[in-house]
C-alpha cells in the first residue's frame, strides 16, 4: 500500500481544517444574508421573526423598481455588445497559427482584467464628462458603453477557449462539401462556438449586473443601478431590504447558471 503512493495535498496535516474554514467563510455569510432577508425587524442584525415584508417593500419601492429596470437594460445591452465584439476578437485571434503581436493583442483585449477598476472608472469619468458637456446628452448610453467595454474580456475568454478546442479540419471538410465561406461560418463554425458564446454572454451579463465602481463614476444624476442604489442605502439606515434585494440577485444568478448548465448538458 505504501509503495507507489503519489503526493496528494489531501493528506497534508490541516488540509481538512483549511478546506472547511474556507467553505464556512464562503457560504456562512451568504446563508446568513438569505436568512436575515426574511427578518421581520427593522434591524439587519436582530432577529424579529419570519416575514417577507422586506421583499414586499423592495418590490413596491419605485426607486428599486427603476434601478432594477436600469440594471437589466444595461446588463442585457452590455452582454449583447461585448459578446459580439468578443466573438469577432476570438475569431480574429484563433483561426490561424501564432502570429506577430499575438501576446500584445491578448493583453490589449484583456486590459480591463489587469488595469485597476478604479483607474478605468476615473478615466471614463473624465472622458465622458467632456462629451456630456459637449453634446448635452446624459442618457444611459454612457453606462452601456462603459459596461460593454469592461465586459469584453469576460466574454472573450470562454469563446476563445471553445474556438481553440475546435478541429480546423471541420471547416476544411465543410469547404470540401461545397460550403462557401459564409455557409461554413453559419453552419459549422457558429454552431460549434455557440456554447462558448452563451457562456461568455452569461459571464458578461453577471459582471455588468454586479458592477459598482465604474457605474458610480460614470452615471449621471438619478441613474442608480441596483448595486449603486444599495450602496447609497448603506449611507443611511440599513434595513433588511438590502438583504432582500441581494437575495433576489443571488437567486437570479443561480437560476441563470442552472439554465446554462442544463442547456450545455443537452447539447453534448
Amino acid at each position, binding site marked *: 500500500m505504501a509503495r507507489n503512493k503519489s503526493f496528494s495535498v489531501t493528506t497534508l496535516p490541516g488540509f481538512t481544517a483549511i478546506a472547511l474554514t474556507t467553505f464556512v467563510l464562503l457560504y456562512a455569510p451568504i446563508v446568513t444574508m438569505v436568512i436575515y432577508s426574511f427578518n421581520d425587524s427593522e434591524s439587519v442584525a436582530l432577529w424579529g421573526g419570519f416575514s417577507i415584508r422586506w421583499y414586499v417593500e423592495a418590490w413596491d419601492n419605485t426607486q428599486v423598481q427603476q434601478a432594477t429596470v436600469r440594471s437589466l437594460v444595461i446588463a442585457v445591452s452590455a452582454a449583447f455588445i461585448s459578446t459580439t465584439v468578443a466573438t469577432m476578437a476570438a475569431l480574429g485571434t484563433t483561426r490561424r497559427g501564432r502570429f506577430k503581436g499575438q501576446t500584445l493583442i491578448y493583453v490589449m483585449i484583456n486590459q480591463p482584467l489587469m488595469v485597476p477598476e478604479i483607474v478605468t472608472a476615473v478615466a471614463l469619468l473624465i472622458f465622458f464628462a467632456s462629451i456630456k458637456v459637449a453634446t448635452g446628452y446624459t442618457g444611459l448610453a454612457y453606462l452601456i458603453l462603459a459596461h460593454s467595454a469592461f465586459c469584453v474580456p469576460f466574454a472573450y475568454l470562454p469563446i476563445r477557449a471553445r474556438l481553440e478546442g475546435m*478541429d480546423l*479540419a*471541420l471547416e*476544411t*471538410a*465543410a*469547404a*470540401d*462539401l*461545397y*460550403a*462557401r465561406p459564409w*455557409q461554413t461560418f453559419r*453552419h*459549422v463554425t457558429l*454552431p*460549434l462556438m455557440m456554447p462558448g458564446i452563451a457562456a461568455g454572454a452569461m459571464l458578461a451579463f453577471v459582471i455588468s449586473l454586479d458592477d459598482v465602481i465604474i457605474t458610480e463614476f460614470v452615471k449621471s444624476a438619478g441613474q442608480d443601478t441596483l448595486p449603486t442604489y444599495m450602496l447609497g442605502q448603506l449611507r443611511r439606515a440599513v434595513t433588511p431590504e438590502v438583504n432582500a434585494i441581494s437575495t433576489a440577485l443571488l437567486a437570479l444568478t443561480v437560476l441563470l447558471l442552472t439554465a446554462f448548465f442544463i442547456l450545455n448538458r443537452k*447539447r453534448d
Partner: protein
Amino acid sequence: MTEAAVEARSARKEYGAGDKKVRALNDVSLVINKGEFFTLLGPSGCGKTTLLRLIAGFESPTSGMILLGARDISTMAPYDRPVNTVFQSYALFPHLSVADNIGFGLAMQGTPKAQVDARVAEMLALVKLEAFSERRPQQLSGGQQQRVALARALAPEPEVLLLDEPLSALDLKLRKEMQLELKRLQSETGITFVFVTHDQEEALTMSDRIGVMRDGSILQIGGPREIYNKPVNRFVADFIGETNVLTGTVETGGVRLPTGDVIAVDNLDAAAQGSKVSLAVRPEQVRIGDGALSARVAETVYFGTDTHCHLRMSDDTEVVARMQSPPSGDTGLHEGQQVSFDFVPGAVRVLED
C-alpha cells in the same frame, strides 16, 4: 482510349519560405483515369496528403497545374470543385446527426430538401447505417464513423473521391471488411477513387493502379502485378513486399554473379556490358531443387501456410525462398544441407538505384 479524371502536370508544392522552405511535392506529373481505383503509396512524409490537398483545392500548387478532366483547376476554390474527401480523422460535424452530416454537401449546393432526404436514405442504405440516421457521430463506433464519412463524401456524387488513409484507425479485421466494402462501393458508383495508404498489402489488393511515392516524387506507376513483379528500383522493390537483392556484372547473355554463375535477366537492354547492376527477385520466385545454382540451407522459418528458406551461396549472399508449407509442416530441408536452386524464368530484374 481511357479518359483522364485528374491530372497533375509538374505539380510542385513548397511550404514555408527562406531557410524553412520544405518541398513537399517535387514536380509530380500523373494521370488518373476515369472510374479508376488509384492508390498513392509511400512512407510517412512523402507527400501523399499534400497531393490530395492539391487535388481537393485546400492548397494551390507553387508551380505546375492540376487538371480535372480537361479543365485547369489549380486556383479553383475547394467548394467549386466536384471533388470530395474522406479525411483520415473523418472530420464529421459533431453538432449534426448522421443524416445531416451525409446531406451536408447537397444542402450546401441548394438541393431541395426532399431530394436531399431521398439521397441521404439511399446513402444510408449503401453503407448499411439506416438504423443510425438520428445519432450523433460521437455515438458511433470507429468503423461506423468511417462509413458515415464515406457516405457524406459520396452523397453529392463527386467526379473524384479522395481518401486519405481512411482505414488506418481501424483494427485489422474491420480494416479487411472495409477494404472489400470500399471496392464494392467503387464498382457500384463508378466514381474515380484516389486512395492514400502506406500499407503495401492494402494497395496491392485494392488498386487498379498504384503510384509509389518517395520524398515528394512519384517513382513508379503501374498495376499491382507490375509494381510487385517489375519494381523499377530498389526502394520500390523493398517497399512492396520482401525481395532478394543480388549484385552482378553484365555480360552477353546475362549477369555474372560473384559466385561465377551467369543468370538470365529480363530487362537487360539498357545496361552496358561490364557494368555493375543490382538485381531483384521475389522469394516466391526462387525454386529449390534441380537448378543451376547451389547454396547451403542457413535457416528455415515456418509462417503457417508458408515456409521461408534462407539460402547462403558460396560468396555469402543470402537468398530467401518462399514455398508453401507441406501438410506435414516439414519441408524436408535442414540447416547445413546443400541444395540446388534457380529462379522462375523472367523473374530476375535489373533495378535502377
